[in-house]
Every structure is written in C-alpha cells, then in structure tokens.
C-alpha cells in the first residue's frame, strides 16, 4: 500500500475538525469550500444595481410594448449585493492557477509575461470608450495605431499586406483558407484539397473543413519535418493550399522549407503559415522570406495579450501581393498625399477633407467580412504597446531568449535519470519549445504523462501541454518563453526529476495526484455522459 493511501482515501474528511466545521490541517478553508455558484447565493430582493431615475414622462409599459412581445417572468438572475458579488468572484478566482503566480510552460500557447502597462493604455477612455462606428476623422488615433501595427506585422512577417480583423488564430486560419479559395476562384480554378502535416494543430484541419475543403494529411519524417516524398506524392493541382507551422509543433524549424515552398507553388497552391510559433523567429527569420503567402499572428501569444482564461485574443493575417485583393473588408489605409505633406490643424478640422487614416470598403474582390466592425482593437492596443516597448531589436532578443530558455531547459532535462524516461521526441536542439515523449516513462515507471502533469500541480507548476502533437507517444510539449528566469527553469527541471524519482519508489503517488489543489482529479467521463451545464434552479 502506498504511504499516501490513507491520505487519499478521505482527505475531505481527514482534514476537517471533529465537528466537520473547519480544517485542523493545512487546508485553507476557502480553497476547499464546496463550490457554490452565484445562483446559490443571495436572497430575494437583494441587488447591486441602482437604476437611474426615470426622468422622462412615465408611460405604461403595455403601451410601449404589447404584452405578446413581453417577457412574462423576469429571468432568474442572481439576487445579490455588490459585496456578495465581489466576495464570490474574488473567492473563486483563488481557485485558479495563473501566469502571475507561477511558471506556465504550456507548449504552443506562449505564456509569456503580460506587462501591466498594456492594461493601462488599453483602458484609456480614448481607446476603451471609442465607438466602432465613430467617423474615421474622429478616430484618427485608433486608425493610426492600427496602421502602425499593420506595418510592424508586415515587417516582422516579411509580407506586405495586413488585415487585423480575425478574432483569434483559428479565425485567421479561416480567413486564410477563404482567401486561398478566393484566389483560386479568381483564376477560374476550383480546388478541393488542403494539405496539413500530422503534427498540425487541431484548428488547422477543423478550419479546412469549415472552409469547405478536404483535409489531406502529410507525414512527418524522421527528423520531425515534412516528409518531402509524401508531399510530392500528394501535391497535385487539386491542392489549394498547404498549411504549415514553422517551427512546427515539435519545436523544430523545417530545414527543407524552401523546397517545400517550391513544390507547393509549383502546383499553383498557396502556402499558409500558422503563426502560433512566431515567438521563435521574430527578427530572425520571416515567413514571407520562406515563401509563405499568408500568415496569421496570434497576438495573444507572440505579442503577449493576457490569455484571460481562454481569450480574448486576435489573429491578424499578413499576405503577399497576389492575395491582397481578397483581404476582408474594411482595410485600414493611409492616404499617401496627406502622409507626405504636413497636415495643418485647420486641415484636420475641415470636415470635407478626407482623413489621413481611413477604412476602405471598396474592395470588389474581397472575401467580405469575418465579423462585426474592425476586429479586437483592445488587443491591437496591447500588441502595439508591446512592439513599441521592445522595438525591433527587443523582439529579436525576445525570440533569442525564448529559444535559449527552451534549449537550456531541454538540456537540463537531458540529465541522467530523466532523459531515459522522457526522451526528446525529435531532433537534438529545439526552437522555442520542445516535445518529450513520456512513452519510456510509462513503460518503466507505469505512470502516464497525465500523472506526471497532475503531480506537477503539487509542485506549484502548470504542466506543459500534454498528448499533443498526436504523433508523439505520451507527448509533453514544453514552452518556457523568454520571460522566465534560469532559477525557474532549474526548479522545473528539478521537479520533473523529483517526480520521476518519487514514481520509481512509488508510482501511486503520481497516479493519484494532485493532492494540494482546490479539487482533485475530476470525473470527466461522467461530465460528458450526463452533461450538467447549467445550475438547476428552484
């Protein structure tokens, strides 16, 4: 029996006092409270909102809105006071792990530090309370910001045209595949297939389907790159596009990228760059120079938008000249004539004068709109602030340090006792992240990657991405980012080593982990079988 058996068997009880009232062990009471939703709190009649005064003549509601259009019963929203709301949400926030509290090496997600300056500037009323339909002449600051951001993204990607509109990476992918469709259609072609490597992120194939194409999978070669033979075999004139991540999700830069581009372009297809891993190459290598036609950026990754528990983000795209005519509307443009001349105060105030920065809707070949208004402007503000803070050299430094950190952590994990159990899946060095295989560990110690991940929680770390990419057995995908210190990387490597050592002695410890979290392992199967996805109300 594991030494922890007793602990595991009834921790909820074992840590409570004889009266069941409060813990007599180290459990902070609030963290282990039974979860109660806001709907289970409050009392009839309680409220936070005070309605502004009815300052217009009172008219019977029935007169303004016939009964058949009216709601019969008020929605059963919570009835809670402001202090209750604050306590409730502050309380449950403490049941989260977050980047400001610890290391978050979630591969592919680029969990880099989020400078607070960005929140400050995004909250300035001139940005935050700007209505999306404000006339361009009265939104020159916003449009200039978008224009500057477009220029910067263009320079970083090496592609001349940018649309900021997509709401996230996968939305950028959709835009990109629809652009590809429009591009082919414009040439009078109908193509049906899109190639994606088997290492691709799930959004790639999902996008392809949504855009009405068929997914064709490409194999990965022994070095972790695209299997060129497979590519040659599948690249025919029914292929509309190849979607690629480079460095790919194994953290490896494809050494054959130029050849790949030639093959793809050779059959008249477009080459799409999934920019999720751009953090590896900013200022060092550019998708446009590699031959990509379309790139999406994940502003929430490389450009440090806080992740918000799953968003918001933004997924701008950059494209080559041949794709540009199809970009979604509206497009932010700058009027050259004005940009050249010096604009006087009087000229700016003049209503008839077209503004320097404007929104262009007159794009006859455009694929149209992907969403309302101009995109996630709040995210643009943050990304732009980040680029201003770092500058060109700073961005390159960021990528260099991200790659240095990843390689250092990888080197640490090549230590004896770890490397045998968690070998690097492909390659030798890596770019900004690397993928280990937990297969040997599973066979030798009888703990799975999932167990290792859960045990890491007890050490105060967010686990790496697990079980992705799919082609690696028991994958563990580690992305430290450039904003972590060597001390943190060392502590993480030590924790991995300690867990493996611990598991060698008693695998049950990891298998039953975590122990120290607000809840322990949850029954996901039951959740999916009989879904309870809302609070049941009286």
């Amino acid at each position, binding site marked *: 029996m594991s030494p922890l058996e007793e602990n595991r068997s009834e921790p909820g009880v074992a840590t409570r006092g004889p009266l069941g009232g409060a813990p007599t062990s180290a459990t902070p009471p609030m963290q282990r409270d039974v979860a109660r939703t806001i709907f289970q709190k409050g009392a009839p009649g309680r409220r936070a909102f005070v309605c502004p005064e009815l300052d217009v003549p009172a008219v019977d509601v029935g007169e303004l809105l016939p009964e058949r259009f009216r709601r019969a019963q008020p929605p059963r*929203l919570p009835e809670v006071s402001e202090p209750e*709301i604050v306590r409730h*949400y502050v309380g449950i926030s403490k049941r989260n792990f977050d980047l400001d509290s610890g290391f978050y090496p979630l591969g592919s997600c680029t969990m880099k530090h989020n400078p607070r300056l960005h929140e400050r500037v995004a909250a300035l009323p001139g940005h935050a309370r700007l209505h999306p339909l404000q006339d361009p002449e009265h939104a020159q600051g916003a449009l200039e910001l978008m224009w500057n951001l477009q220029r910067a993204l263009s320079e970083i990607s090496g592609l001349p045209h940018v649309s900021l509109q997509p709401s996230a990476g996968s939305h950028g992918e959709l835009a990109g595949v629809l652009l590809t469709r429009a591009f082919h259609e414009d040439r009078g072609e109908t193509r049906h297939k899109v190639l994606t490597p088997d290492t691709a992120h799930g959004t790639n194939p999902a996008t392809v389907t949504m855009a009405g194409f068929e997914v064709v999978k490409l194999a990965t070669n022994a070095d972790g790159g695209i299997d060129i033979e497979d590519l040659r075999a599948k690249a025919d004139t029914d292929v509309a596009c190849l979607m690629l991540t480079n460095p790919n999700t194994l953290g490896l830069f494809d050494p054959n990228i130029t050849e790949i581009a030639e093959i793809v372009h050779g059959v008249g297809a477009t080459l799409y760059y999934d920019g999720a891993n751009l953090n590896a190459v900013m200022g060092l290598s550019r998708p446009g120079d590699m031959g990509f036609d379309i790139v999406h950026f994940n502003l929430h990754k490389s450009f440090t938008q806080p992740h918000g528990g799953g968003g918001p983000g933004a997924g701008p795209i950059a494209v080559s000249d041949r794709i540009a005519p199809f970009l979604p509307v509206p497009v932010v443009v700058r009027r050259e004539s004005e940009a050249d001349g010096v604009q006087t105060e009087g000229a700016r105030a003049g209503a008839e004068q077209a503004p320097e920065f404007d929104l262009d809707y007159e794009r006859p070949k455009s694929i149209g709109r992907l969403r309302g*208004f101009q995109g996630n402007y709040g995210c643009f503000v943050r990304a732009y602030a980040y680029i201003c803070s*770092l500058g060109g050299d700073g961005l390159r430094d960021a990528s260099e340090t991200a790659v240095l950190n990843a390689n250092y952590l990888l080197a640490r994990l090549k230590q004896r006792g770890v490397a045998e159990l968690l070998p690097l899946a492909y390659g030798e060095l890596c770019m900004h992240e690397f993928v280990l295989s937990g297969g040997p560990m599973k066979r030798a110690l009888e703990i799975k990657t999932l167990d290792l991940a859960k045990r890491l929680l007890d050490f105060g770390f967010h686990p790496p991405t697990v079980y992705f990419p799919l082609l690696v057995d028991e994958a563990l995908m580690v992305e430290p980012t450039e904003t972590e210190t060597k001390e943190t990387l060392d502590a993480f490597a030590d924790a991995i080593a300690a867990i493996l050592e611990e598991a060698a002695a008693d695998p049950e410890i990891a298998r039953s982990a975590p122990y120290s979290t607000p809840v322990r392992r949850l029954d996901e199967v039951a959740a999916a079988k009989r879904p309870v996805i809302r609070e049941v109300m009286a």
Partner: protein
Amino acid sequence: MLAAIGVGSVQEIFDRQIPAPVRLGRPLQLPDGLPEQDVFEHLRALASRNTSAEDELSFLGAGMYDHYVPALIDMLTERSEFLTPYTPYQPEISQGTLQVMFEYQTAIAELTGLAVSNASVYEGPSAVAAAGYLATLHNGRRRFVVSAGLHPHSIQTLRTNAHGYDAEVVEVPLRDGVTDLDAWSEAIDGDTSAAIFAQPNFYGAVEDAAALSAAAKAAADPVVVAQVDPITLGVLAPPGDCGVDVAVGEGQPLGNRLDFGGPSFGLFAAREEYLRRMPGRIAGETVDVDGRRGFVLTLQTREQHIRREKATSNICTAQALNALAGVVYLAWLGRRGIVELGELLLARTHYAREQLGAFPGVEKLHEQPVVREFALRLDADVAAVRRRCVERGVNPGVDAHALSGREEDRGVLLVAITERRTRADIDRLVEILGAAVASERRETVAV
C-alpha cells in the same frame, strides 16, 4: 546556460537550425524600443486623437452601445487569477475559470429561455455565421434565409462563411419596419438550413418572433435562429419562448467596453438537441475523486483539438474574459435590475423617438415598438446633418446607409439610447439635430 546546452553562442542555436537563405540577416526595420513612460505617452497621444463617448454626447449604436460598466468588473477582470491563465485544460487548478463559464452558461440559458448555452464565441456577427454552420451540420441543407432586419455585418459575415462551404444566402425584405412574414414564409423551402432574424432588428423594431418562428417551422422546418440583444431580454420575450432554436448575439452591452469594436463576446444558446453540435467551450459539472463538486471542460469531442477535421467548429482561443464581464454584469443587474433597466430604456427611447419624430423634416422610419434604438428618416443629407451635430458636440447616431450600403437606407439615422443618456441629453439631441436638419433642408432648398 550556453555551456549546459553545449553551444558557443545563442547565434549557434539558430545557425544550426535555420537554413541560411531564410535567415533575416538584418535588424527589423522598426523603431527602437522605448521606456514604459514613453510608450504610455505615445499611446495616450493616440487616444487623445479619438473622440470617444467620453468626449461627445453620443447616440451611436447599431451593434455596440455605450452602457455604463460598473467598476467592479474592471477590478475582477484585472485580477491576475482571471486575467492571465489560459483555457482551463487542467481543471484541478482552473476551477475559478470553469465555474465562471458554468455560471455564464446558466445566465445565458436563463436569459434566452433556451436549455443550453456554450461558454461564448467571438462576437455577434460571427456567432450568426456559427449558428448557420451548426444548422448545416444539423440538417445537411445549404441555404440560409435571412431577414433584411438582421445587422448588415451579420449578413455579410454569414455570406463570407457560407461561400466557403457553398451555401446560399437569401434576404427577405422588411415591411413596416419588420420582416415581411409572407415573403419570409415563401422564401423558406426544403433546402433552407436556417432561417435567421434579429430581435430587435437593425432598425430598432421589435419583431414578432413567435410568428416568424412558427411560419418558418410551418414552411419547411429549418433551424430558426434569432440574433438577440441581451440587454433587451429583461423586457422582451425570451427567444426560447418564441419557438426559436438557436439564439446568438453580441454580448458587448453586458459589461464590456466599446473598445472600437472588440474584444467583446458572442452569446450562443440553443435547444438541448443541438448540444453536441455546439461550437466553442462548454463547462460541465462533475465531482472529483473525493466526491467534491467541480467543473470541467466537457463534450470536448465536438472540439478541434480532439476531433480535428470532424470538429463542429474551429474555435480555440475565444473570449473567456469578456464572458466573465458579461456574467458579472448580469449578477450586478440582477433579476429585478435587468427588468428595470429594460423599462428605463423603453421609456427613454420612446420619449426620444416621439420628440425627434415631431420635428419638421424628421420622421419615424416605422411605428413598431422599439426598446433601445430607433430609426428616423431625415429629409436632408444624413452625412451633412451628422457633421453639423458633431461640430456642436453631439453625435446623433449611425448613418444607416453608410453602414449597410443599401439604397433604401439613404436618409436613415439610427439613434441609440442607453441608461447613460439622460432626458437632458435627449433634449439636447432634439435641439441640435432639429436645428441641423432645418439648416440642411434650407440649404437644399436654396440650391
């Protein structure tokens, strides 16, 4: 660190991996980095070149609205614990985010009168497109019938998406400001995957949602989709009670900033039968190994990271933090507040419409009930009238033609009212808009 890696320099790490031809051999041509204070000043200078809803008396709406966002929302969304984690892949350390999602789903289901809600999608118009995609997955049909009262951005976004999977979008015109019921019934055929309308519609009018749903069902049983404005649902009948299958909408009015158009969130709720085809994340309740209540991401087999090309949507990073603001806002309003607020909007909107409609050269576009926005037809050039008003510090609303590009929208002004616009503000609008219209008419006559 280099020694541990076994390289002589950082450069070497790159040189060994990136082929020389695709290395960027020069610095990025971007300005130098700046100290924090300089970035702040630069961004402040840009902000000051925008005229925000703080700088003028604004009646802009048409999809996003200048509601008051209570201070506690900022405080909660700025907490590191909510702001900086990612999607709750590790539920044991993500109960905060997961519970928020669960509460959000509860609130949206309650508000819409529908059984299930996801944890939100990107925003309004793309939510309409997502509903269309759901419908095609559901019934395999490839045609969308949409009311011309749907927001132009929604129609355009649906078209962009539908073009990808080769579906057709057919518009049904309005009559007296609302969807023409006969044309609607007629347009819906056996190929019609979804029938989509907005409540209230783009011109502010309250649609007869129950009649539209019933007519659609009767015609060919498509998926009936309503784009709703959640802040009106304290007074308007919930879509679920009107026979609607899927309700989507722009969540911005619920505690989210204007932000020049985003980020906000899209709400997405449906009848139970659509659950396993919903896009986006869904949190579900369960228990841990000790029997303690907890929440997890559930029904993930719909999602791209599990189902890949067979996923019901490609959505990944979305709008968790904005949805948090939404549910906190709804808790702040509360059961009674959402009704009171709705009634206040009704009363002020009515007042504004009556006052403005009485002006020479200004008439109501329609006589339908309105909740928080209404359309006027001006007997003058809207752009010129707006310019006059803006010069006097009042932004009278949205030029419908400029937004929709529809010929019939020429002369139409959309005026939005929120609880921030007092009677005094409305009276000022009346005065200034009235004067502007009068001047423009005179000028037109003179010419």
